[in-house]
Structures are given as C-alpha cells and as structure tokens.
C-alpha cells in the first residue's frame, strides 16, 4: 500500500464520518466514500481498465505488445505507455484492450460501473429525471420573477471559471479551459449537473469536483448565513412577501413543455440535462403516469444513486485525486458558493430598486440551487429577523430556478469549451 492509497483511505473514512455522523449529503457521500476506499485497495485494481491493470502488472511480454500496439518503441517506460494510452486513437486503444484481455486481465468492478453509469452519461441524467419528478414548480410559477435570482446566482459558476484560468495564468495551477469550466460548475450547487459536465470536460477531475460539490452543498447552512447577513440590512431581512397565488394543475403541466421548447429553440446543448428534468416533471404533473413517476422518484433514482456514488468513488484513486489540482478545486469551489450566494442576494436587492413588489433579499441566496437546503437557510434567517416571516415557499422559487440556471450554464459551457478545444 502506497502512502497515497493510505491517505486516500483515511480521507474516505473522513467522508463517511461526515456523511454518517454529520449528515453531509449521506445519499451520495456514503457510496462515494465507500467507493473511494475500494478504489484504493492495493493490488485489487478495482478502478482500472484491463489495459491499465496489465500495465500495472509490469509483465514484460505484455508491456512489449502494448508498446507495439500503441506505436511506441520497445523499451518505453510505464509512464510513457500510460500517456500513449490516454492519447491513443480508438482503434489502437481497442487493440490494446484485446492484448490485455488475451493476457487474462479484465476491467475492475468500479471501472465497469463508471463506464456504464457515468461515461455513458446515463446516471446523472436519470437522477435529473428523478429530481424533476420530485420538483414542484408551483412557487416558481406563482412568481416567475424569481427566475432572475436563479440566473444571478450562476455568477458563482462563471466567476470560478475566471478564478481557475487566473490561477493557471499566474502559474499556480495547471488548469486547461475545459478543467476551468468543469470546476466552475461546482458553483451550480447541483450534484448531477456537476458530474455530468465534468464527465464530459474533465473526467480526471471528476472525483474532486463531485466531492467538493456535495460537501459544500452540505455546508450551505454554514457558508451562506454570514454572506447573507453582511449584504442585507436588518430592515431588508424583515420584508414580508405577499402570499403566493394558487397555481393551476394545467399551468404545472404546460410549464415543463414550455421550458423544453425554449431549450429546443435556443440551447440544444442543455437538452439532455433539461430534457430529462422536464420529462421527470411532466410525468409528475400530468397525473396519468403516476406509476412511472413513483418509480422515477424511488426505485430508479435509488438504484442509480448507488452506482453513481460508487462510480464517483472510483475517481478517488490516489494517483488521480492526490494532485495539487484537488486543493485548487476545493479552494475554488467554496469561493464559487460564496460568490453565487452573494450574487443572488445582490440581484434581489437590485430587483427591489426597480419593482414595487418587494422581495426579501434573503431568498436571493436560494438561487444557487442546493435544493432544499438553501431555501431552508433563507427561511431560517427570515424567521430570525421577523418571527412571522415564513420565506420557505418564496425561496423555493429561486431554488428550483437555480437548478434550471445551472443546467443552462452547463449547456453553454459545454458548447463553448467544445468550440474552443475543437
């Protein structure tokens, strides 16, 4: 066991402790932490594909064959083999896999889980469908203006992208533009979106990004209040909002379709995420497929969560996670949450300057997503300032708007990064 593997097992035990004892997003962090331990078991190679297991075995005959298949010279080091493998064209990679299979190596269990659940994109999408089936857009429909709060809070995402490229430019870290975009999405405070984006743009950083996203989501009740208090006056926090109007069943049915049509027209790259989200929500609201909606909210999302968590854990293998980049990601992630919170609150204050229907700026922070913790934080601070001020339902509007906002941001970033890296 290397020191790295030992440290990672300790880190994963720490994650399990936080999840079980401190209730840090346990549904994800228990499987992630456990998967992380499994990924660091020396000699078990659970997180490696057959080829990498073959390389790790150090068998000279196999290495020679692999070198040849990857177009390298005979006496290459293991590092250069790995590098060649990563940049190999599909046909050469296929050939290398066949050589490993012939030598008796097979893919590790966690590697298979990762491939099926995350590399294919399916697990985050299915979870998004389930989240859609659990989401009530009523508060948002009663007060659509709160969508702007969900938009503003996404500034946390983009500020973090800027921070990451600045770090790179300053030579502190070595993030590519794709890395920076994937790190930024932590600021979206939405686990499946973060996993989906990083699986596409920066698979190597996926472990750190997912851990950061879920940990900071669990820390929302600690991160947000000081920022919210600093940016609002006591008087603003006391603002009572008018009761939300009744939203009809039909509006709720049509809303996911309206959102889907807008995505289809203007944002095709957000179609997988928002499409599945809208699909889940339509199943929920349409009232004629409750069998399917129930399953999407229970058996299906639970099964997917188990495998998604273990798969993310596979990216906590020491040689990938123990990297200065991880520290950078953790540092940038918390900044992202803070900026998103601040942007949401400030947007609410801006809206109050131009509209006569005042909103309590405390609900702005809920725009970061982190459903429903952020909305609860808004409610709690509201009650502190004014014991008759129940902001929970009002904060659910920006809260779900934040989910939409970060999925939109994800779509934009995927498009732009692909265009840039071509």
């Amino acid at each position, binding site marked *: 066991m290397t020191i790295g593997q030992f440290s990672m097992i300790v880190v994963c035990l720490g994650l399990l402790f936080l999840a079980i004892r401190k209730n840090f997003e346990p549904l994800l962090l228990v499987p992630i932490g456990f998967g992380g331990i499994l990924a660091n078991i020396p000699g078990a190679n659970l997180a490696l594909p057959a080829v990498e297991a073959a390389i790790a075995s150090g068998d000279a005959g196999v290495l020679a064959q692999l070198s040849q298949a990857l177009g390298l010279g005979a006496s290459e080091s293991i590092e250069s083999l790995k590098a060649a493998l990563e940049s190999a064209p599909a046909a050469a990679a296929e050939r290398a896999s066949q050589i490993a299979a012939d030598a008796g190596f097979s893919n590790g269990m966690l590697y298979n889980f990762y491939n099926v659940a995350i590399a294919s994109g399916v697990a985050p999408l299915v979870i998004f469908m389930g989240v859609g089936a659990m989401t009530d857009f009523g508060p948002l429909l009663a007060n659509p203006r709160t969508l702007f709060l969900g938009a503003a809070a996404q500034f946390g995402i983009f500020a973090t992208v800027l921070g*990451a490229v600045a770090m790179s430019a300053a030579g502190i870290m070595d993030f590519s533009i794709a890395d920076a975009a994937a790190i930024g999405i932590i600021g979206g405070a939405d686990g499946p979106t973060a996993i989906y984006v990083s699986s596409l743009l920066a698979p190597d950083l996926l472990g750190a990004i997912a851990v950061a996203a879920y940990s900071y989501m669990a820390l929302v009740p600690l991160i947000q209040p000081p920022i919210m208090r600093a940016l609002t006056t006591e008087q603003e926090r006391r603002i009572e909002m008018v009761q939300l109007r009744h939203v009809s069943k039909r509006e709720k049915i049509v809303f996911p379709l*309206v959102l889907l049509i807008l995505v289809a027209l203007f944002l095709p790259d957000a179609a997988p995420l928002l499409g599945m989200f809208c699909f889940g929500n339509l199943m929920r609201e349409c009232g004629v497929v409750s069998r399917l909606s129930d399953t999407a909210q229970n058996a299906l999302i639970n099964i997917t969560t188990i495998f998604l968590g273990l798969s993310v854990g596979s990216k906590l293998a020491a040689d990938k996670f123990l990297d200065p980049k991880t520290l950078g990601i953790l540092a940038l992630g918390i900044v992202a949450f803070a900026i998103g919170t601040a942007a949401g609150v400030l947007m609410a204050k801006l809206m109050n300057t131009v509209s006569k229907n005042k909103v309590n700026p405390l609900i702005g922070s809920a725009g970061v997503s982190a459903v429903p913790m952020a909305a609860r934080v808004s409610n709690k601070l509201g009650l502190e300032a004014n014991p008759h001020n129940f902001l929970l339902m009002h904060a659910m509007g920006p809260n779900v708007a934040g989910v939409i906002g970060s999925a939109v941001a994800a779509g934009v970033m995927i498009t732009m990064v692909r265009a840039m890296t071509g």
Partner: protein
Amino acid sequence: MQDALLQQGLDITLFGMGIVFTFLLLLVICTTVMSRVMTRFFPEPEPVAAPSPASAPQSPAGDQRLRKIIQAAIEQHRNRRK
C-alpha cells in the same frame, strides 16, 4: 498562451452569464404569458374541497392512536417483506 486562456475564460464568463440571463428572461416572459393564457382561456374547474387524508378522522385523540397503530402495522408489514 496564458493570455489566450484568460481570454477564453473571459469569453465564457461574458457569453455564459449573458445567455443564462437571456434564456431565463425568455422563460420569465413565456411562463408569464403561458400562465395568463391558461388562467384566462383554460381555467380549471375550482377543485371541490376534496376529502383530504388529514381530514378523514374527526377526533384528534382517536386519530393519534389510530395513526400509531397503523404505522406499527405498516412497519411490521414492511419488515416482513424484507
């Protein structure tokens, strides 16, 4: 090279926030229009105060006791299925 990276980050930020805001603005508009249309042209029949689950049992005390019993039964039932 590093300048190019910074430029790319700036591009993503500006375009990104722009598109997020534009898209959600569009969504605000469409949602508002949709709500108006639905409310005016396809109003729902006012839901008859449905006999909500919570309102079924009249006496709160009996309700309490019954609920306990029922939960126990459900618990047992679930445990047996395992």
